[in-house]
């Protein structure tokens, strides 16, 4: 089953978008997860709900919200483009943003749980040994939470890879720019005789997802073994 150029393009684009989306949102996900796990502040419940919103909203609504905010005339998108020349509208960067937003709650949840499982007294012990807060986080909290972070990354990546609704609403379906595997499958299904291509791409998408899950399982096991030694 040979893949056409368009199909290859969609796969490469999907991987690029998912990698960029995951890599860029990871620091934010870690920060948000830490805040939710370790800090109490006014409005925490609302903050938590907003983080989880993309999980429960129809993806089309999230895409529409992104369009309003980050579109060419959006209240964030317009100044971003004017000041920094960064544009999201109808570009692959926009697809990455949509994927990142949709995958964010899936990343935050396991990382947060991993932070909650780290004994805060270990952080205090590190402090009493002279470690400043950021160091404590870097050498105690984060390594101990590493398996959860790995799980979050894999889940976020898998979600980013398969994102469709928000992406197509926000940045449309432009071949080579925003047409990911999911968009390509949808496009194929829209055209007569495209079922075979759709099936091929579906199998590839499933394969990538299974590999990602296996990788996350392996990472989690290795981390568990390391801390038990």
């Amino acid at each position, binding site marked *: 089953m040979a893949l056409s150029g368009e199909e290859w393009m969609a796969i490469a684009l999907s991987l690029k978008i998912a990698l960029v989306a995951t890599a860029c949102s990871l620091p934010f996900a870690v920060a948000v997860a830490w805040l939710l796990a370790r800090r109490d502040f006014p409005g925490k419940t609302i903050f938590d709900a907003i983080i989880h919103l993309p999980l429960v909203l129809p993806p089309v609504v999230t895409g529409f919200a992104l369009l309003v905010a980050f579109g060419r005339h959006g209240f964030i998108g317009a100044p971003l483009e004017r000041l920094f020349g960064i544009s999201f509208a109808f570009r692959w960067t926009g697809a990455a943003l949509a994927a990142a937003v949709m995958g964010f709650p899936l990343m935050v949840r396991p990382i947060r749980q991993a932070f909650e499982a780290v*004994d805060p*007294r*270990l952080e*205090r*012990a*590190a*402090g*009493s*040994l*002279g*470690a*400043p*807060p950021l*160091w*404590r986080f870097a*050498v*105690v909290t984060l*390594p*101990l939470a590493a398996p959860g972070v790995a799980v979050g990354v894999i889940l976020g990546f898998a979600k980013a890879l398969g994102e469709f609704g928000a992406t197509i609403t926000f940045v449309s379906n432009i071949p080579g720019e925003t047409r990911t595997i999911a968009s390509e499958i949808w496009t194929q299904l829209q055209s007569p005789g495209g079922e075979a291509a759709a099936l091929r791409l579906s199998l590839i998408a499933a394969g990538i997802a299974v590999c990602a899950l296996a990788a996350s399982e392996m990472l989690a096991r290795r981390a568990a073994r*390391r*801390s*038990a*030694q």
Partner: protein
Amino acid sequence: MIEFQAFDQRRDFTLDVDFALNAGVSALFGPSGSGKSTILNLIAGLERPQRGRIALDGNVLLDTARGVFVPAHKRRIAVVFQDALLFPHLNVRRNIAFGRFFAPKDAPAIPQELVVAALGVGHMLDRRPATLSGGERQRVGLARALLASPRLLLMDEPLAALDDERKIEIMALIERLRAEFSTPILYVSHAVEEVVRLAQDVVVLDKGQVAAQGAPATALMRARGVMARERFHLASALDCALGAYDPAYDLTQFIHPSGQGALVGRVGPSGKPVRILVRATDIALATGPQTGLSIRTRLAGAVESIHADAGALAFVHVVLAGGDRLVASVTRSAIAELDLAPGKQVDCLIKSVALDERPVNEF
């Protein structure tokens, strides 16, 4: 020198204490709920009081009146925790190197080899904390704290999670640290035996207040309210010298200004100073001549005071010849029968098998 003054009112507990400690090993003693853990957290910088001032060697760590608060990691006060709290993802070598990494480069550093040797952790450097026993973990915890070059070592019930054998082993190690390294130690415990054995100065706490302070023997005796709840932990310490060893019965004589007695086994050379721990429940008081007793240890003194309530028990404080004080736990009925009263001469009879000794050459 630790200067500590704090007031902190909570829902069901008010801490209001003021003390200064200036000994190689000091102790905070009191039952659970007396406030000793809170004080430890305040000194370590893990909590803040509503009002207070804490200074270490003249260096102000906290002064609520002037808005001074030095965060925990800048205080250079290392804590040895009850359950060691080693970093589970790091091996022993990295655990004990942790504090050294963050210590200021100009801090007086104790050579790692010395600490490793003193605490006997050399053979476990490549192991992970999960594979260590409780006693081994606590040794590593001590090494880790010491190698951070702290200005003060806080020990938070470091023996509470260990069995008796390990307790004795770690206690001996702490004594060794005190003798070999100059790091001052503040030892927090609710076990009289540990405090009497390790500390030179003790603050006795009760319900968030200082009940007494001073040398362990006297401070613990003065704090009667605390002790009445714990008669099995009530003990006095006597400074004695060793006498001759009797190989026929495997007993070592000891000499105290008020009399003499016997210790089990060969304890040390004649003339060596020892501090002997006597539990209040191991002492019998006698007023008349005694014959036909198995007792090997007999010390003469006079009743100083008697503390009793309506219950069955009373505590008798005895001043021994030479000035040491002893507290004995006896029944109220015995006090009536012997007609004990302040000033009355008594013999304190102690079973030799109940005596605990320790060398005091490092005092």
